[in-house]
């Protein structure tokens, strides 16, 4: 249909666009393995630099930059001080993301089943109510939660953040799962009901087994949105815990920003999320649009 020249032109152009898009990420990865002398120079050193694992060691293994710079005879020259060991922050992130994902997927699976299979009055209004939760500005929820958490002792706890993230992901999870469940034809239910099955049995024996990929895709997206969330963690925690996004802002110290450590933490946090999202490529768009667009 198209000539060879157009085809080649298209491939070249597509790669140029894609690589331009990926360039900031690539650059960021190089910052995590470059020494300061290679970071703070222009033109930026994208390929020709001496790689170092010092920042990853500091962030992930708690080998202090001072010790390292003594070993490497001061060549490291960390800018800024402060704490760089970030494994506890990664653990906080994992606890919160996993906890809220399990909670939201459980709640949403049950609710989505009812919304998809059982007809009841005002169903449309209920769906719209769930959707409008998505329109709540996080700050509108965070202010009352902050004040309430302070009095009930949930402030600065994992559980407090887990609950906030659960609510944040409810609209996505419910609407997406409903769209998956709607794929199973209602005739199957009718046949099962004639055979004497209850809704619980339909849920257990038909919906859950056939919708495993849909539930997994929902879980992955909820995980990612919790993993990247910023405002709730900022407002609902103090010193007890910090997730990765909030911890990154802590690298900005009065004596400068520790770009290398910041980049290393960012890269470490990016890898699991990217692997997860690759696993659900097939359902990604459906998930991002909360089930309103099917692929």
């Amino acid at each position, binding site marked *: *249909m198209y000539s060879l020249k157009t085809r080649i032109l*298209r*491939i070249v*152009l*597509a790669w140029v666009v894609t690589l331009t*898009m*990926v360039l*900031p*990420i690539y650059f960021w990865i190089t910052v995590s393995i470059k020494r300061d002398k290679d970071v703070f120079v*222009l033109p*930026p050193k994208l390929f020709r630099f001496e790689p170092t694992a010092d920042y990853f060691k500091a962030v992930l293994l708690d080998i202090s930059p001072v010790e390292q710079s003594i070993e490497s005879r001061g060549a490291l020259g960390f800018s800024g001080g402060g704490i760089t060991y970030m494994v506890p922050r990664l653990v906080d992130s994992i606890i919160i993301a996993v906890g809220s994902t399990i909670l939201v997927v459980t*709640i*949403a699976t*049950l*609710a989505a089943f*009812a919304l998809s299979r*059982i007809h*009841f009055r005002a169903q449309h209004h209920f769906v719209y109510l*769930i959707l*409008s*939760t998505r*329109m*709540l*500005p*996080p*700050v509108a929820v965070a*202010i*009352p939660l902050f004040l309430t958490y302070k009095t009930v002792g949930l402030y600065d706890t994992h559980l407090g953040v887990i*609950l*906030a993230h*659960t*609510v944040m992901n*409810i609209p996505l999870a419910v609407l997406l799962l409903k769209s998956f469940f709607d794929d199973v034809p209602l005739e199957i239910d009718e046949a099962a009901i004639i055979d004497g099955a*209850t809704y*619980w049995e339909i849920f257990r024996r038909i919906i859950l087994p056939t919708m495993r990929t849909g539930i997994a895709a929902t879980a992955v997206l909820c995980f990612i949105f919790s*993993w*990247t969330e*910023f*405002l709730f963690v900022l407002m609902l925690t103090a010193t007890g815990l910090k997730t*990765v*996004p909030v911890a*990154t802002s802590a*690298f900005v110290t009065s004596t400068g920003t520790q770009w290398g450590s*910041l*980049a290393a933490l960012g890269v470490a946090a990016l890898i699991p*999320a*990217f692997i*997860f*999202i*690759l696993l659900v*490529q097939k359902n990604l*768009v*459906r998930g*991002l*649009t*909360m*089930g*309103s*667009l099917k*692929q």
Partner: protein
Amino acid sequence: MRLSMPRFMISEHPFPWLFPLIAMLLVFAVFPLAYNIYLSFHEFAIAKRSLVFVGWENWLKLFSDTRLYNALVINITYTVVCLTVQLVLGFLIALLLDTDEKGFGVMRALFSLALVIPPAVTGMMFKMMEDPQFGMIAWALEKLHILSREVPILATSELALAGVMIADIWQWTPFITLIFLAGMRGLPKEPFESAVIDGASQWKITTRFTIPMLSKVIAVAVLIRGIDLFRTFDYIYVMTSGGPGIQTYTLSFYTWKQFATSLKWGYGATLSLLALIIINVAATVLIKLAKIKW
């Protein structure tokens, strides 16, 4: 066994299925909303260290607050500019990538990379790249004779907002691209093939077929992205902290400032309700007009 239970407790009734969700929403969505409404009629008195009833004062203040006006203008500018750029760029890139040719699957996968980076991290990343002393973007702009490096992007009134928008556009254009791509892949092939046979130009095919057929996809993209753009906070917080001055105070950031720095809990709550009302009205209109269904 089943007969001995009240009817709404058995699995044939929707209630047991919806109960956990309703409980969650009551505690974490309805209650905060009610609390916000309560707060909006009160204000935290620092001297007394307690909430004092102030009546409609916070609501009336909305009409005379020039900072709020400033924040709304910034919010609308931010939302409209980012949305437009993301839609146009996203659409063009989707057109480019919409083919069964080998290798394009890899590119599509690479495009989902940006979506998993926390916006706060993206903000830091672009803050570094826009740094006048060692930033890649600042350097490239100088080389292209667009902007001298003596002008710090994020610290200059006229440029700070654009500096933040670059990060948002970079991170979320792929989101739009992926949505459009899925939409395009789902379109029937026949009308396009016959249009090509009839000798229609690529431009005509795009404007007469692709865009109208994707109208629902576009509406969904505008809805979801629009809501998030209007609530922007993370980029502002890490990149400019609202500065220089109040040049990048979005509504969310202004609300947060009122709450966290000025300790105006009541007014902060009023502002967050205002944001909710605006988003809800705009979204409802869009959903009705575009007939988006869930």
